[in-house]
Every structure is written in C-alpha cells, then in structure tokens.
C-alpha cells in the first residue's frame, strides 16, 4: 500500500493547518476578552462565523443547534478554505482538493453519520413505519424502501454537487489555458489572439469561481443543517 504524499494530501494538510491557525487565534482572542469588540481580521472572522451561525445553523437545526454548530461550522470553513485555495495558482494552493470525489465523499459520509446517529425516535418511525395506508407498508414494505433510498440519496447528492461544481470550474480554467498551447502550431498571430482571449476568459471564470466557492460551501452547510433539523423533530413538534 503506497502511503506517499500526493499533491492533494499536502494541500489538505496545509489548508487544515491554516484553518486551525485562523480559528484558534479567533478563539484565543475571544477567550481572553469576551466583551471587547474585535478589530481587523479577528473581527472579520468573528462576524463571518456569527453570520453563518445565525442565518444558517440556528433557523435550520432548531432548538439544540449549539450541539451541532461545531460540526456544521467546521464543514463550512473546511469547504470554503479549500475551495479558495484551489483558485490560487501558486504552490500550496492550486491543488484541487474539494474537486476530488474522495474528499467530498468523506464530508457526505460525515453528514450521513451525524444525521442518522442523532435521529430522534419520531424520525426513525417516519422512515420505517410511516403514516401511510397499510397496503403500502405491510406485505411488501414499499414506502419504507423508498424512504431508505431517500436516506442514502441525500448525502450522495451533497457529495456529487460539491464535486461536480468545483471540478467543472477547474476543468474550464484548464481548458482555456491549454487553448494557448494548442494554437502554438497555427502561427504566432493566431496564438497571440487566442492568448489574449484565453486570459480574459480565465480571469472572468475565476471571478465566477469565487462566487461558486462561497455558494457551494453555503449550500452544503445549509442542507446538512436542514437534514439534522429534520432528524431531530420530536413527536410533540410534528405538524399534524
């Protein structure tokens, strides 16, 4: 078994260390002086974390959001930092970490485990014995089978959505850059023209990729929070 470090593994280690450094410095500054209003980068990170906490996690998870906030915030910042580092062409950035289906599979499996290991009794009863007419569940469990498939397809969709979005962005940038080398044999004027066009389009696609980096992290975290919230609905809160 070959355990040598690949480019993705080095980039994962680098981004994890960067993320630990950033978040621990925010935490240390807040532990020392909880009531002081922070300035500069620490203030920006605190505002960012509180925005994610209040707008995504609190409304979607419900009343025990504090228990799941560490996991969800970790997922958001991990995906966001790795997406952003993938856009930088210089050394520790530029490795396509979140565009690797193994990484997104681990994230989706983590969401699956958190949702299902913390499900309330009402959640499991709704999956295995839902309130539908008896012929749909008694001799052949049709509705339970459909619900179990739904249980598996939701994290699968999370995995493929993140993987496809980030990989597609990287593929477009690669394709546009390679266009320069393809037109080398066609003469220098065509090459110069295509270089200008390719660079302009690549810069434009990089702006779009910045937006996609934030949106994909946001959507992954939002959907994980919604799944956790749905799994934690207790019997007394269910709408009739």
């Amino acid at each position, binding site marked *: 078994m070959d355990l040598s470090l690949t480019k993705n593994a080095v980039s994962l280690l680098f981004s994890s260390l960067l993320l630990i450094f950033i978040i621990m410095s925010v935490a240390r500054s807040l532990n020392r002086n909880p009531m002081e209003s922070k300035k500069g980068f620490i203030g920006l990170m605190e505002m960012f974390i509180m925005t994610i906490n209040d707008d995504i996690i609190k409304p979607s998870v419900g009343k025990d959001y504090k228990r799941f906030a560490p996991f969800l915030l970790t997922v958001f910042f991990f995906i966001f930092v790795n997406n952003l580092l993938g856009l930088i062409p210089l050394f520790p950035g530029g490795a396509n970490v979140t565009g690797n289906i193994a990484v997104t599979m681990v994230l989706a499996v983590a969401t699956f485990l958190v949702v299902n290991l913390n499900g309330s009794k009402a959640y499991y009863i709704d999956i295995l014995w839902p309130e539908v007419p008896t012929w749909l569940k008694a001799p052949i469990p049709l509705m339970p089978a459909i619900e179990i498939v739904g249980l598996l397809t939701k994290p699968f*969709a999370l995995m*493929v*959505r993140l*993987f*496809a*979005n980030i990989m597609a962005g990287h593929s477009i940038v690669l394709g546009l850059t390679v266009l320069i080398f393809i037109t080398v044999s066609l003469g220098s004027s065509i090459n110069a023209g295509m270089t200008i066009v390719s660079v302009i389009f690549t810069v434009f696609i990089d702006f779009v990729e910045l937006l996609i980096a934030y949106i994909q992290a*946001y*959507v992954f975290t*939002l959907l994980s929070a919604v799944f956790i919230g749905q799994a934690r609905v207790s019997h007394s809160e269910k709408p009739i």
Partner: protein
Amino acid sequence: MTLLTVLLQVSNAVGLETLGAALGIGLAAISAGYGIGKIGSSAMEGIARQPESASDIRTNMIISAALIEGVALFAVVVCGFIL
C-alpha cells in the same frame, strides 16, 4: 432531413457514444439555463412587488439556483463517465 444526415456522419466519425454524451451535456446545459432563468424571473417579480424583502428573496434565489445547478452537474458528471 439534413439534421439526421449530419448526425449520422458524426456518429460514423467519432462513434455513437461520444455523440450521445455530447447531446446529453448540451441538454443538461439547456435545462439548467431554463430552470435558473425561471427562478431569476420570479425573483425579479417578487422584488418588484415588495422591494423591502429584496435580501430574503435574493438568499432563497441563490439557494434554489445552486440546487438546480447541482442537478445539471450530475448530468455532466455522468456524461463524463460515458466519454
């Protein structure tokens, strides 16, 4: 008639599976564009009716657009496997 002729010539040159994958990706792009266009237009209408809820509508629009784009990219990934 000419469309069929062109398609048959392409399938002779590069093979039917490449043609199928290319058509699949084109259809995915068309459907994603149509769906997100509908979301955008209804979001614009909602903002025009009630400008003070613009940021709520914008947040929901972006979430829906990301989900629809996810479906289109599923199609792209599967066609990539065919190729």
